């Protein structure tokens, strides 16, 4: 699974993209659990959203290798 990283998520992982063949998540909720297990720092953020194909995704949203997946840490534009 390939995941795009932005902002503080890049610092947490130490890379711009996270390639994690061991991740087996079938939906967004499972992906968040796997992320937090591997990188506990994600649990300390005030929010942790996942985007699937450039849209905010709910916990139930199904994911596969075909989707563009991104971690959206708390936004701070403006």
């Amino acid at each position, binding site marked *: 699974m390939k995941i*795009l990283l*932005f*902002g*503080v998520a890049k*610092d947490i992982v130490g890379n711009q993209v996270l390639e994690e063949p061991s991740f087996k998540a079938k939906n967004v909720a499972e992906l968040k659990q796997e992320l937090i297990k591997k990188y506990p720092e994600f649990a300390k*953020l*005030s929010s942790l959203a996942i*985007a699937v194909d*450039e*849209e*905010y995704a709910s916990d139930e949203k199904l994911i596969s290798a075909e989707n563009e997946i*991104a971690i*959206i*840490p*708390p*936004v*701070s*534009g*403006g």
Partner: protein
Amino acid sequence: MEKKIEIIENIDPSLIHKDLSHPASGGICVFIGAVRDTTQNQKVNSLFFEAYEAMALKEMEKIAEAASKQWNLNRLIMQHAVGDKKVEEPVVLVGASSAHRDDCFEACRFLIDTLKEKVPIWKKEFFDGKDEVWVTPHP
């Protein structure tokens, strides 16, 4: 409604009247966000902005769409800058024009508040003699 939605290197506020002027608009309202030199009593040297550009543009389109449904607007603009920005430089610009002032004033407030809440853009602060930090939003 005509709209201009962009993620760009540099915002040029001198273009704003031309961008929002419309024969049916008697009012034009604009908000420009700029780099401030202090945050929580610390001197800020510069900011760096990063965007998930494709998604940011989609979210900005949704916000513009919602504004056009709620208020009677003739033209609308949303621009956000990316890259290194120094103190006083503009980093975000939103605005609208409408027949009367109430619509553009209210729309403008909605545009900037919703942009700050939803659009995937992140800022990093650079200080004097101290490590830079990604900003976590505060009210």
